[in-house]
C-alpha cells in the first residue's frame, strides 16, 4: 500500500497518518481513532477498522489489543426526528 492510501474514507485519513499515530504510541483501534479521527465519520469505522487492524498486526500489535471500541447508540446514522419518534412535518 502507498503511504497516501486513504484508509478512512469518511475522515480522509491516510496510511501515513495511521502509521505516524502508531509511532506516537497508539496501539488499539480506539487509540488510533483518538489520535487520527479514523473511524469517527459517518460509517463509524465499519469500513476502515478491518484495514487498521491489519496495519496494527503488521506493527506487531495483535488483534486482542484491538477489541472493537464500545458499541453504542445509534447502530447506524438516524435522523433526530426518527429517534424521538415524531412525525416529520412536511
Amino acid at each position, binding site marked *: 500500500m502507498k503511504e497516501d492510501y486513504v484508509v478512512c474514507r469518511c*475522515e480522509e485519513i491516510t496510511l501515513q497518518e495511521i502509521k505516524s499515530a502508531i509511532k506516537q504510541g497508539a496501539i488499539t483501534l480506539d487509540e488510533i481513532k483518538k489520535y487520527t479521527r479514523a473511524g469517527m465519520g459517518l460509517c463509524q469505522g465499519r469500513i476502515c477498522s478491518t484495514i487498521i487492524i491489519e496495519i496494527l498486526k503488521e506493527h506487531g500489535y495483535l488483534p486482542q489489543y484491538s477489541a472493537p471500541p*464500545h458499541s453504542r447508540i445509534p447502530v447506524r*446514522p438516524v435522523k433526530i426526528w426518527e429517534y*424521538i419518534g415524531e412525525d416529520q412535518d412536511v
Partner: protein
Amino acid sequence: MYKRFADAIIIGGGVTGTAITYYLSKTGIQPILIEESNLNAGASGACDEGIVLQSKHTGIMLDMVLKSAKLYKTLEDELNYPIGYRNVGGMIIINEEKYIPVIETFIKKQQQQGLNIHMLHPSDIHKQQPGLSKKVVASAFSKDDCNVYPFKLTLGYVEAAKRLGAKVLLHNRVNNITINKNTLGDKRRELRITTNEHEILTPIVVDATGCGSRQIGKMLGLEIPVFPSRGQIVITEQIPPLIKHQIMDAKFIVAKHKPQLVEKNNALSNLNVGLTIGQAETGNTLIGGCREQVGYNTSTSFSTIREIVKNAADFFPFMKDVSIIRSFAGLRPTTPDNLPILSQTPIPRFYIASGLGGDGLSLSPIVGKIMADLIMKGNCNIVDISQLSLDRFFNIG
C-alpha cells in the same frame, strides 16, 4: 522491570495531567507522565469542545477560567501545535420569562468580575444565531467563549513537554505508590511508583487521574473525595456551519441558583438534561448534556439520548433532519462541593489536581500553571487556592 529516576511524576494523560507535565517542564525540570492506557482515555476524550466562561460562578471559578481563556489565546503558538482553538463566542439561551431575572443578576456579578458578557436585545437574538427556535425569548452573549479540540490539545502539550525533556510512559498502569524508607539521605528517592513495566523513584508525584483519584489516594492511605458523574453526549453527522456559537440552556444556571423555578416533575429535569450544543470545525455538532449518578458506568442509554436530542430539536427545529452518528459518555470527576481539588496532601510532595467536574478542558492551562507554581515555589500567586485544598473536606468545626 526497568528502574529509573524522575524529577517528578504526573499520573493521568488527560487535559489536566498533560497540562501539568508541560508547565512543569517549562520550569526546567524533566518530569515523566504516566498513563494507564493512552491520552484522552477518560473524561478528556468524552467531552465536547467548549471553553465556556459564562457558565462559571463568580469567585474563584470565574477567576480561574478568565485566566485560562487568556492563556488559551496564545497557547497554539506557544505549543507550536494545531490544537483547534477557535474563539467562537457563546450564548446562554433562555426559553422561559421567569428565568430572565436570575440570569440578569448572574451576569451582572460576572461583569463586575471582568467577564465580557451582555444580554442581547431580543430583536438581535435570532440574527446572532439563525435557526434558533422562536421559543427563545432572551439570551446572554459572551464573545470570550471558545472551542478547542481536546485530542490535539493533549498531544500539543505532550509534544512540547517532550521537546523540553519530559518523558511519557503510555500503557503503564500504576500498581503501587510507596514512601521509600531507604532514601540514602537523598530526597530525590522519596516516593516510589511501580507500574506494570517500571519502578521509578521520584521526589514529586501529582495525581491527575480524575475519577481514578480515589483509587490512587488509597495507595497512600489518603481519602480523596472525587466521584464520577456521568455526562452523555451525542454527535451528529457533519453539516454546514449553522451553529455559530457554543450554546447552553439557561436552565443549567437557574437550576443552581433558583432550583424552585425549574420544573422537577418531568423526565428532563430528573436526568438534569439541559441543552449544550456546539459545532466542531469538522462540521459535526456535539450535543449534551446531562449529569447522572451511575457509578463508573460509561455506557449510553436510549432514554437519556432521546431527551438530549429532543431538547436540541426543540431549540433548533432544523436539527430534526440531521442524523446522529454516535453517542458517548464521560465520567466527570466531581467533589462534594463541586469545586476542584488543586492541593498538597498530608504526604510531602504528593499533590492532587482532580475533581474538575465538567470544567477540565476550560481550566486546563491555568490548572497546569497553578500546579507548576504550587510544586516549584511551594505556593501559588495566580489565584487563592486555599479554597481548593484537600483538607477543606476534613476540617470539622
